[in-house]
C-alpha cells in the first residue's frame, strides 16, 4: 500500500514526507523527538487534516483508521463506544475482555480514568475494519500491564491482515511490536529499517544521537 510523497506546512513548521510503502499484516513504529512531525504525518495520511498536495493515500487503500492522541470518550457506555466501530458484538466483547474493560463495560465513558479511557479508545479503534490503522501514542497513559495487553491486541490485529502504523515515545515498545521502525526528525523521515537493524546500525547521525538517549 502506497503513501505518496507530500508536504504539510504550518506557520513555522514544514513536514516533508517522502513516498512510503506499507504492507498488510505488518506493524510500523514511528519514533522521533517531540515536534518532529510524527503526529502531523499520521493525521495527514489518516485524512484528518489535509496535506498541501491533496490526497496522499493510493487508490488501493479502501479504509484508513486513526486513533488520535486526544481520544474523545463519547457520552455513552464503554461498550456502546466500542460498538460504534465494531463489525460484530463478538468482536467488541473480545476486545473488552482482552483489554480488561469487562468490569466497566457499562460505565459512562465520560467518567473513566485516563488509563481506562485510553484502553477504551484503543478497543474502539481496533474494533473497526481498517486497511491501515494509525495509532498515535495509544499507550501513553497506560500502566505496564495494560500496555502489554494492548500490544498483544495490536499484534493480533496486524496478524489478521491489517497494517498498523504506531507512533510511540517508547523505543522499547517499538522494539517489542514493530516490524519496521521509522525515525523522524525536523519534519523529515530520516531513516527506515527493520527494528534490530535500525537500533544496532543506524546510518544517520541524528538517529544515532536519538538512540543514544535510550542507551543504545
Amino acid at each position: 500500500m502506497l503513501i505518496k510523497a507530500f508536504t504539510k506546512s504550518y506557520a513555522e513548521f514544514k513536514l516533508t514526507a517522502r513516498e512510503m510503502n506499507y504492507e498488510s499484516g505488518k506493524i510500523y513504529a514511528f519514533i522521533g523527538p517531540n515536534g518532529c512531525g510524527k503526529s502531523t504525518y499520521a493525521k495527514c495520511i489518516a485524512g484528518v487534516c489535509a496535506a498541501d498536495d491533496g490526497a496522499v493515500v493510493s487508490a488501493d487503500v479502501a479504509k484508513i483508521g486513526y486513533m488520535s492522541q486526544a481520544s474523545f470518550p463519547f457520552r455513552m457506555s464503554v461498550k456502546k463506544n466500542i460498538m460504534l466501530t465494531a463489525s460484530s458484538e463478538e468482536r467488541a466483547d473480545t476486545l473488552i475482555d482482552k483489554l480488561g474493560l469487562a468490569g466497566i463495560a457499562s460505565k459512562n465513558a465520560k467518567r473513566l480514568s485516563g488509563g481506562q479511557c485510553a484502553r477504551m479508545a484503543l478497543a474502539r479503534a481496533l474494533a473497526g475494519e481498517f486497511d491501515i490503522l494509525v495509532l498515535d501514542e495509544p499507550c501513553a497513559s497506560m500502566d505496564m500491564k495494560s500496555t502489554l495487553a494492548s500490544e498483544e491486541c495490536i499484534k493480533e490485529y496486524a496478524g489478521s491482515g491489517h497494517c498498523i502504523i504506531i507512533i510511540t515515545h517508547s523505543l522499547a515498545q517499538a522494539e517489542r511490536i514493530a516490524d519496521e521502525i521509522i525515525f523522524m526528525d525536523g519534519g523529515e523521515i530520516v531513516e527506515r529499517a527493520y527494528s534490530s537493524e535500525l537500533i544496532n546500525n543506524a546510518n544517520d547521525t541524528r538517529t544515532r544521537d536519538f538512540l543514544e538517549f535510550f542507551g543504545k
Partner: protein
Amino acid sequence: MKTSLIRAINLIISPTEELLDILGTTAKMSLSSSLIALVIGVLIGIWLGSSKSKVKSVLIVINRTLVGMPPVVCGLILFMLFSGVGPFRHLQWMFSVQLMILAQVLLITPIVISTMETNIAEIAGPIKENCRGLGLSKSQSLKLILNESVYFIFSSYLMAFSRAIAEVGAVSMVGGAIAWKTNVMTTAIMMYTNRGDFTLGVALGIILLILSSIVNIAVTLIQRRLTNVN
C-alpha cells in the same frame, strides 16, 4: 411583603378565572416560543459552532449583537410591521399571542444560538477528528455531537424559557396586555402596579417565580435522567 405572600398563597389555593387565563396565556407564550427558539437555535448553533469559516465568524458576531437587542426595539419593529397600517396587516396578528410568540422567538433564539455555538465550538473539533479517524459517517458524527450537547441543549432551553416568561417590554408592545387575550404575568403585574395594587403585583411575581422554578426543576430532572448513561 407579608400581605403579598398571603395573597399569593390565597391566589394559588383559589385562583380567580382571570388569573387562570393569564397563567394559560403566559404558559402558551413562553413554552411555545422557547421550544421554537430551541429547535432553530440548536440547529444554527451547532452549524455555527461545528466548524469555522469567514462567513460563520461574521454570522457569530451578528448573532452576539442580536443577543443584546433591547426587547422594546424588537417590539417596536414588530409593531410597525404588523400594526393595522403595517405591511403585514393582512395577517391580523396585532395584539395576538402569535405575535408575542414571534417577538419572543426573535429575542431568545440568538441566546440559544450563542450558548450552543460557544459550547459546541469546544467539543466539535475533537469529536469530528475522532469520528473521521474511526471512519464514521457525517450523519453519525452529527448524531454524536447532538448526543454530547444534550446537557447544553437543556441549559439553553432553561435560559430561553426564563427570559421568555420574564420579558415584558416586547410583549406589552405587541400584545397590548389585553385582558382575556394577551395579558401575561409580567404585563398583569404592571397593570396592577398602575392601579396601586402593589401587593397583588408582588403576589403575581411570587407565583411567576414559583412557576419558573417548577419548570426549572422539571427540566433539570429530565436533563439529569437524559445525561445519565447506562
